[in-house]
């Protein structure tokens, strides 16, 4: 589905400050209908990776082959068509929805943008939006509500519905649940798992929470300052990490296991 080879991104230093290497020779492949996790702390380059994949930024080196075609070297027209095939769901549910648009407009917008390909009538678009709302666990009564009338979890569902509108093959999920409460996060994670099976989607799941990545993904990649530290199946990466950074990071994760309390281990 997606092959990334030797991807690097170097930001030129401005006015004397040194150049910053955000991504350094990152390579991985995502098989169709599979979930691939990218784990890293702030400043590890995971956001840069996302921006390159959806064409908001041009990489300095390397290729991103989506079904054989390199995203970085697409013509604007092809890029638009590619954008319908890869969609993104952002972390912050409050900022990723236009406050002045109703749920119907938000979810319906991609159908409008890609109207030239989809040729849907207004009636068909509304039906599609209602269908999407129900698929993400909301309903027709939410059609005309505005973002400020929804909870964090509901907004994230709208974000997912918007991403599914043009029937993409791949979803990039940029820390979709880290801004949510535990119980709401569980609902969204289950929704994502169910959607992956029913719609045969492949996921690129970005998060700093190893528990969540382990729950959703089949394979995972660990980033530190733009370099790939670990890569492989989830169990192998988390249970038998090679580098000591990975070991320290995994040990630092506060797992809900009373046995690992500082009071016992100190």
């Amino acid at each position, binding site marked *: 589905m997606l092959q990334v080879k030797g991807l690097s991104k170097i930001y030129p230093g401005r006015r004397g400050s040194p150049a910053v290497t955000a991504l350094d020779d990152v390579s991985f492949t995502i098989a169709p209908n599979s979930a691939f996790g990218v784990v890293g702390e702030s400043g590890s380059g995971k956001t840069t990776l996302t921006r390159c994949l*959806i*064409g*908001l930024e041009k990489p300095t080196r390397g290729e991103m082959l989506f079904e054989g075609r390199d995203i970085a070297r697409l013509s604007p027209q092809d*890029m*638009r068509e590619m*954008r*319908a095939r890869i*969609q*993104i769901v*952002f972390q*912050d549910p409050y*900022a*990723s*929805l*236009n*406050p*002045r*648009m*109703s749920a*119907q407009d938000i979810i319906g*917008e*991609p159908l409008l*943008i*890609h109207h030239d390909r989809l040729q849907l009538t207004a009636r068909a678009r*509304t039906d599609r939006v*209602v269908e999407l709302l129900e698929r993400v666990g909301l309903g*027709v*009564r939410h*059609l*005309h*509500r*505005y973002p400020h*009338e929804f909870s964090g979890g509901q907004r994230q569902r709208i*974000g997912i519905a*918007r991403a599914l509108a043009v029937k993409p093959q791949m979803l990039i999920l940029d820390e979709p649940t880290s801004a949510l409460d535990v119980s709401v996060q569980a609902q969204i994670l289950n929704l994502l798992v169910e959607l992956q099976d029913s719609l045969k989607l492949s996921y690129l799941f970005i998060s700093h929470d190893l528990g969540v990545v382990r729950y959703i993904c089949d394979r995972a990649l660990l980033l530190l300052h733009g370099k790939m530290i670990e890569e492989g199946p989830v169990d192998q990466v988390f249970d038998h990490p090679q580098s000591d950074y990975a070991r320290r990071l995994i040990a630092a994760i506060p797992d809900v296991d009373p046995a690992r309390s500082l009071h016992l281990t100190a």
Partner: protein
Amino acid sequence: MSPQQSAHPSRWQNWQRSLYRFRQSGLSIAGLCIVLVLLVIAVAGTWIVPFPDHITGGINTAARFKPPSSLNWFGTNELGQDVFTLVMAGARVSLIAGFGVVMIAALLGGLIGALAGYAGGWIDDVLMRLTDLMLTLPSLILAMAIAAALGAGLDNMVFAISMSWWPGFARLVRGEVIAKKEDLFVQAARALGASNSRILFRHVLPNVMSPIIIKMSLDMGFAILAVAALGFIGIGVKPPTPEWGSLLSLARGYLPDYWWTAIFPGLAIFFAVLGFNLLGDGLRDLFDPKARR
């Protein structure tokens, strides 16, 4: 329940809460009333005024310098004209001029600001350097120079003032557009493949409208002040059309004994500007409740 029915409660409820906040502040209501009264006078001025002929230059020298009385509420001036009539007629000139300045400045400044803010890069630098230069120039002297060169007259004055007024809007719109441009929902739209124009007009500008509207209502007051200032220095509207600034300037010579010829045009300017300021303040709270504690 069909989708349309469910639309009304949410949108109406949203407006109901904002109106509650607007009503809550007495000042904004006062501002709204003053502005409405002004509009009525400006539109229906010539019909409801006691001495309509005075507006077009008619004089009544016998009744010179009469103090305020039941006949002449604001007394009469050196030509025996009823000051109340002139002040009422002056409202139309000031409102039209003020509105003209704000509209031209908002459109011109808004366009330049949006372009600079959205395009960024060298376009932003060039446009903003020009705007900053215009801002450093003394606006009133610039307006005076342009108005004097083009000759007296309402349209020249409006053009002159708006030439030095648009940079304010340009800077506001640029700042807002730059702030909104980085918002996540704008990036989301871009990731969806939305075109630049769609992003600008469907996502960025609607979320930038409220500060622009607030500035327009505040600036209406200040534009009226600028028009009156030009009139006061004698570069304003050609007589005999009555204009508050020139009325005040003429009346200066007859102080202190015929004080009413000066006080009432001055108060008219004051209340007009106050009305728009209060309205602008009220709108700011309406749109951005966090602003006022």
